[in-house]
């Protein structure tokens, strides 16, 4: 039996980078159905074709949409649930934007650009969770938000992007605590430095060959999407660190605390 057997999964930002790699890996791990969302239909359809080569039986729908638009969010969820017959097991909020490139200092940020980044990186995930939750709550499910170390450290020049990720991490904590007894778990993952188009645009001076290939950071997403992570909620994961040992260590500490 594969790790994701029978799982119905929605991934935003699925046409490239980490989103694309997750789609391929989820299909390999036995996902029953995938809803792939991104702004560019041609790239999405290319990913769909790749997925179907790996897993011809996966039920797949591609949705060309912009998560910064609330009307698109309603359509993403409705179209996904029409395809999946009303159920959803996993939602991955992966789509994000860095905003203007090169990234300006906050002092130089226009309010329009600032809002655009927050709409995509923070309001979009909020609305997606709000709309998708009813389809998860009856059967239990997993929400995975993709964050960044810029969501914990105020790096100069990472302006609205970093602030949006600070917000995403805070929002994830709140969702996790509000949904604690519901059967829906909420966790967030910092994938670390990856060689993606977005990261290359954010740091054009850096050498991308030193960054991880997005295909190499997907283990933690498989863990969180699978039943192996049942009971794990409200936690931050760093994909390129030894997250499994840390989890075991934390679990051990909690167990010891309960004994006391």
């Amino acid at each position, binding site marked *: 039996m594969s790790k994701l057997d029978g799982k119905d999964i929605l991934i935003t930002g699925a046409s490239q980078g980490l989103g694309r790699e997750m789609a391929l890996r989820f299909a390999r791990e036995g996902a029953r159905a995938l809803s792939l969302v991104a702004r560019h239909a041609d790239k999405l359809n290319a990913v769909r074709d790749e997925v179907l080569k790996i897993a011809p039986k996966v039920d797949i*729908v591609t*949705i060309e949409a912009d998560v910064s638009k*609330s*009307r698109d969010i*309603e*359509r993403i969820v*409705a*179209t996904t*649930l*029409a*395809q999946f*017959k*009303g*159920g959803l097991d996993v939602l991955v909020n992966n789509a994000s934007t860095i905003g203007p490139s090169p990234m300006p200092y906050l002092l130089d940020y226009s309010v329009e650009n600032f809002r655009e980044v927050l709409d995509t990186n923070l309001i979009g995930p909020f609305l997606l969770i709000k709309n998708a*939750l*009813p*389809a998860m*709550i*009856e059967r239990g499910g997993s929400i995975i938000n993709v964050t960044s170390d810029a969501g914990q450290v105020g790096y100069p020049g990472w302006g609205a992007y970093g602030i949006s990720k600070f917000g995403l991490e805070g929002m994830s904590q709140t969702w996790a605590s*509000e949904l604690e*007894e*519901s059967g829906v778990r909420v966790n967030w993952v910092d994938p670390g430095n990856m060689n993606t188009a977005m990261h290359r645009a954010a740091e054009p001076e850096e050498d991308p060959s030193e960054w991880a290939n997005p295909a190499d950071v997907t283990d933690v997403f498989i863990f969180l999407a699978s039943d192996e992570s049942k009971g794990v909620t409200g936690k931050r994961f760093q994909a390129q660190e030894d997250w499994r040992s840390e989890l075991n260590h934390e679990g051990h500490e909690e167990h010891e605390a309960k004994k006391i």
Partner: protein
Amino acid sequence: MVFTFVLPPELSAKEPPERRGIRRDQVRLLVIDRATGHIEHTRFDKIDKYLRPGDLLVFNSSRTLPASLRGCECSAAHGPCMEVRLAERLPDGSWLALLLCEQGDPFGCGLRAGMQIEFAEGLAATVLERDANIPRLWQLRFSISGTELVDLIYRLGKPIRYEYVSAPWDLDYYQTVYATEPGSAEMPSAGRAFTWKLLLDLKRRGIDSAYVVLHAGLSSYMDDELDRQHPASEEEYFVSRTTAGKINQARENGGRIAVGTTVVRALESAADSDGCVHEKQGYTRLTIDSQHRLKAVDGLLTGLHEPEASHPDRRGAFLSAGPRRPAYEEAVPRKYLQHECRDVNLIP
């Protein structure tokens, strides 16, 4: 016996409660005890006082479509334009829809079988024939189907709105918080007042939830005479094995409270003569009225309606006219609101 009364038009909810400065669960609640006829007036977020551990709330999780589309007849001369209100998806993938001409008489712009309607973004439909049961409806076949059509309906459509609303509220206001699968022409509105906090609090108290899907059709055919006749529309429904199991178990432990008359229709359609509910999917024409003997439902949460002016009087199956009359007579001077963003009535 059927009783009649009129809800004054000023009691139409023109705005969602969130736009009236209150939360969706702060609308008013009129409680009529089914056994004693005792009446209480309270607020919806205090509903837990009237429920017991072991009770099961059964919701209709059908999601509201933006079911109003604008199209024009495709012809050499510029054809008339119309509002197409989707009513119901049929088993063969075609749809029943109400066609309302934009200019003049809403039914007077030459609507006919064979007509081609063009919408935006390349969507088109062929008008097949009038519906035999509800002749104001036409059967349409769209140029695309399935998920692709759902996607385009959400791109192009608007929620069906009636004249009493004060602004063109977004689709979000026409959804219950627990809506999942899209398919209703209009919101199954009895459960609109529930919030997730309330649902989770109730669950902690031992009052569980279960979900059915019944894709609700149109509440009006924009034809007073036809609306007065309440033609029994056919609606698609689905009762899962999990839900059937919960309902049968609740029969032993507590009350089965239907949140909305669409839920009553689905459950009574899926129940056998002993009241046991089965996993079932199909279309129902079942009429629930004062003559119907309830088998699978003990209580009802619903809105206040004029019994003869809108829906078939499904509340009559729960409570005779005797105890309902004084309750409604109290509700009107207290200005209980009606329609989709309304105050609600619990009959436990």
